[in-house]
C-alpha cells in the first residue's frame, strides 16, 4: 500500500491540527490483542481448568452482554467487566481478585506485544517542528489509554488526549470530536483526522467536524469507496512524512514568491 490521495484539493495545504486515533492506527491492534487473549486463555486453562472452547465461549458471551448493556460508552470496552462476567458465566460468581488478575494479564501481554508502527514518532516529531498541534481522540477508558500512551512514550508528543470515557460517548458520536475541537481552541486551517476505522474515524470526523480524513490501511482494515472514501489512504507513516514535507515546502515557496 502506498499513499493514495482521493481528493487532492482537500490535501493541498498544511493542516491546522492533526487528530489521531490510537488503536490500530498508531500500532497494530490485532496481534497484540491475539497475544493478550492467548495469555488470558492459558491462564483460564491453568487456574480454572477451563477448556479453550469454554473460555472462548464464555468470554464471547460476556463481551456481547456488556457491549449490549453499555453500548456506545467507554465501559463497553472494559476488559475488567468482560472478565468479571466471563467468570460469572462459567459459574464462579463474582471473583474480584481473579477478574483483576485476568485484566492485568491481558493488558500486560497486550502492551508488551504491541509495537508502534514504524515512523509514527518521526511523523509526530515533524508535526512538532512544523508547529502543528496534535491530539488523540480514542474510545475506551482513560486509565488504560493513558497507560498505553505512557508505555509507548507518546505522552510528550500530543497536546491533548480525549477518551470516550471523558466525552461520554464512543466515536463516531460527535461528543469526542467536539471536545477535541474545544480543547484545540482556535484552529483556522483544516483539521486532519488520521485513523483506521472507516465509520468511527473517517466518517465520524468528516461528518462531525468536517475534518480532512486520512486512513491508515493495512491487513484487516476496510477502505470504503465512493462518497464514504477517505480523502487519502496510506500504508506507512513515511508516506505521510513525505506528503507533509512537500506541503511545507510548497508553502515556503509560495511565501517566498
Amino acid at each position: 500500500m502506498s499513499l493514495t490521495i482521493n481528493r487532492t484539493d482537500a490535501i493541498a495545504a498544511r493542516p491546522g491540527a492533526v487528530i489521531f486515533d490510537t488503536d490500530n492506527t498508531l500500532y497494530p491492534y490485532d496481534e497484540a490483542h491475539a497475544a493478550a487473549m492467548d495469555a488470558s486463555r492459558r491462564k483460564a486453562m491453568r487456574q480454572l481448568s477451563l477448556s479453550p472452547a469454554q473460555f472462548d465461549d464464555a468470554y464471547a458471551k460476556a463481551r456481547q452482554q456488556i457491549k449490549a448493556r453499555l453500548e456506545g460508552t467507554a465501559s463497553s470496552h472494559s476488559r475488567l467487566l468482560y472478565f468479571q462476567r466471563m467468570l460469572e458465566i462459567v459459574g464462579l460468581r463474582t471473583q474480584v481478585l481473579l477478574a483483576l488478575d485476568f485484566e492485568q494479564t491481558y493488558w500486560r501481554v497486550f502492551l508488551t506485544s504491541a509495537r508502534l508502527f514504524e515512523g509514527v514518532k518521526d511523523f509526530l516529531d515533524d508535526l512538532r517542528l512544523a508547529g502543528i498541534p496534535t491530539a488523540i481522540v480514542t474510545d475506551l477508558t482513560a486509565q488504560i489509554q493513558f497507560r498505553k500512551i505512557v508505555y509507548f512514550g507518546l505522552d510528550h508528543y500530543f497536546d491533548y488526549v480525549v477518551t470516550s470515557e471523558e466525552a461520554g460517548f464512543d466515536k463516531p458520536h460527535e461528543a469526542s470530536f467536539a471536545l477535541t475541537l474545544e480543547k484545540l481552541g482556535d484552529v483556522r486551517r483544516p483539521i486532519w483526522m488520521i485513523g483506521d476505522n472507516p465509520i468511527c474515524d473517517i466518517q465520524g470526523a468528516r461528518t462531525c467536524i468536517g475534518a480532512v480524513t486520512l486512513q491508515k490501511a493495512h491487513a484487516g482494515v476496510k477502505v470504503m469507496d465512493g462518497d464514504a472514501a477517505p480523502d487519502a489512504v496510506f500504508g506507512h507513516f513515511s508516506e505521510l512524512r513525505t506528503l507533509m514535507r512537500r506541503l511545507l515546502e510548497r508553502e515556503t515557496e509560495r511565501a517566498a514568491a
Partner: protein
Amino acid sequence: MGLARWVDDLERHLRLRDPLFQIGLAIRLSLVLLVVPATYGHWFLPFLQNSIAAGAMLDPWAAHQATGLDSHAFPYGVSMYLVLLPLTAIGAMIDGLGGSQAAGAIGLGLTILVLDLTMLAVLQRLRPERPRRLLLLYWLSPIVLFIGYWHGQLDLVPLLLLVLAVLSIRQHLPASAGALMGAAIAAKLSMLIASPLLMIYLIVNKRLRPLLLPFCTAMVGIAAVLQFPLLISPAARSMVLGTPEMDKVYDLAISSSGGLEIYLLLVVYILLMFGAWSIRRISFDLLIALIAIGFLVTVLMTPASPGWFLWPMPFVALIFATARLQTTLIVMLFGFIFAGFHLMRSSGAEVPMLGLDLTLPWADTLGLTERELSIWLSLLVAAGIVTSALLLREGIWRNDYFRISRRPILIGIAGDSGSGKDTLADAMIGLMGRESVAHVSGDDYHHWDRSKPMWQVLTHLNPNANDLYQYQQDVLSLAGGQSILSRHYDHETGRKSKPRRQSSNDVIIASGLHALYHPAVAERCDVRIFLDMDDKLRRHFKIRRDVHERRHKQENVLASFDRRQPDRENFILPQSENADLVFSLRPLHPALLEDASHQDDLPRLKLCARLRRGTPYEQLVRILIGVCGLHVEVVLSHFGGPIDVTLEGDVEPEDVQMAAWELIPNLDDLVTLKPTWQGGTNGLMQLLVLNQTAYALRNRLA
C-alpha cells in the same frame, strides 16, 4: 485477508518495500532466470538430474559414478541433496519435455533464492534494530550474489542450517539446535568448524550448561543418521570424503624438522578455541563474532574455494549491522574485491538467452598475467585481514559483554538486621542463578557464636563485633576471581561452621550489616544497595522472624531494639550515603501496624526507592505504569540530589518478568535459564536491582 496479513508479515521480516531489498531481489531473479553457472552445468545439474532419471534417490552418488562423469560433482551429504532435490526435480521434469537443462537450472537457482530469502528473514529476526544495514551487508553483498548466483556454489544450504541452529540456541531450544547443526554437518563437513564454538558457548555459560547434553545428543544423532549413506555407499564415501577440498586446510604450513609440517590453520583455530574458552561468559553476540572470525580465518589461511567465503558472511553482517557506516563500506569493498578477483580467476556462467558463454575465468579472456592476478589476490587477503581486524574490534573488543564479563559483577547489600538483606540476596540469586552467583553473608563474620558472653556488651551492629577486615579481604578476593575459605553462621544453632572453600563466580553478592562499611568494598561494588525500613514495620517483621521463626524470646527481641539504636545510627544508617539504591519498605496503612487485631496480618506495603542522580529511571517508570499498572510517584528534591520513586500497587511475578524483558537490553545474558521472578515488593526490588546492574555495567564501559 489472510493473504494481506501474510504479506504484512513478509514486509516486516524482509522489508519488501525497501528499495535495497528490491534491488537485491531484482539482481537475484535476473541471474536465476538468465544465467546458468558453470558449476550447475558441469556438476550439480548432471548429478541431480541423473539421480532423478535413474530413480536412484537412495544412493545418487553411485548412480553418478556409474555415468563416468566428474567424480567431484557433488561432494556433499544427504541433507544437501534433499534440500536441492524438489525444485530441481520439477525443473528436470519440464526439461524432460523440451530436452534442455534450462528449467532444472532455474529450479536449482530458485532453491538457492528461497534459502537466501529465509537467511535474510532469520538475520532480520536476530538483528531487528538495523534492518537496512543488514540489507547492505548481506542482501547486497557482492560475495553472496557472486557465490550464489554467478559462480553457482551451494554453500548456502549448510550455512542456513547453521544459522538456524544458532537461532535455536538463542531461543533455548537445544534439541532443535543440535538437530540443525547435525544436518548442517551432514550437508557439508566444514560446518564442523562452528560446532566447538557452540559447545564452548554452552559450557562456559553456566546457566546454559543444561542445554549442552540435548544439543550434543541431537547433533551427533542427526549427523549420524544423515551420514548413514556414507556407511553403505562406497561411492558416497569416495565423493564426499575423498574430495580434494578437504586437503586445503593443510596447505598453509611451516616446515619443521624431519620432513614434518606445522599446519598454521590448525594452530590458529586452536588458539581461537582457547580464546573463546578463556572468556568468563560468552554472550550471544560474542558467539556470533567468534563464529565469524573462525570462518574468516579459515578462508584467509587456505586456498579456499570461492564458496567458502560465503560462510562468514551472515555472521559478519550480524556483527557489523550495529557498527559505523564506514565499517559497512569497508566490508562491501572487501566483497567487491572478492567478486572482481573471482570473476578473473574462477569459473563463471553461461547466459543462454543472449548466447553468451562466460564460463571461463575472465583472466584468460582478458589475458591477465599471474603477477597482476597475484596483486589482486594480495588486495583480497589484505581486505580480508582488515575485515578480520574490524571483526575483532567491533565483535570482541567493543562488545560490551566481553568488556564487562572480564571481572565478576559485585553487588553489595547492606542494612539493619531484619531489613530483608538475605531475602533480596535470595531473590537476586533466583534471577541470576545459583550456578552463577557466589554469596558472602556478613553474618558469617561475627566474631563469636551466639552463646558467647561478649554479646552482652556488644551488639552485632558494632563493627568491633565482626571480622570486617576478613570480610573485606574475602569479598575483594572473590571479586578478583579468587577462591576463599569461609565459615558459615547457622541461625538455628547460633554457631559457625568449620571453614570451607568458596569459589568466585560471575556474580558476587556481598550482603551484611556492614556490607558497604569498608570504603574498599563500597568502591569496588558495581551495585551498592542499602535496605532501610520504616521503624514500626521493622519492629513488626523482626518480631515475626526472630520470635516466630528463630524461636527467640519476644521481650529479648524488643529489648535488643533499644540497645541497638545507637550502633544502628552510628554504623549502619550512614552506609546509605554510599548506596546507589536505597530501598525503604513502608506500610500502606501505618495505623494498622499498631492495631492489635491486625498483628498477625501481613501488612500491605509500598516500596520507596532512592536512586542516585544519573540513574536512568524514565523508561523504568513508563514500564511500571504501562506494563505493571502501578501508581508511581517520582520526586526530584534538588539539584544533585537523589531521585525518590514511590511504587504502590499489586504486581505479579509475570508483570515483573515482562517489565524486565522490556527494560533491560540483553537480559538473557544476565539472568539464568529459568529465572525465578517474584511478585510484590520483592519483585519490584528485583527489577530495580537489575536496572541498576545494567546501568552499572554500561558505566564500566565509560
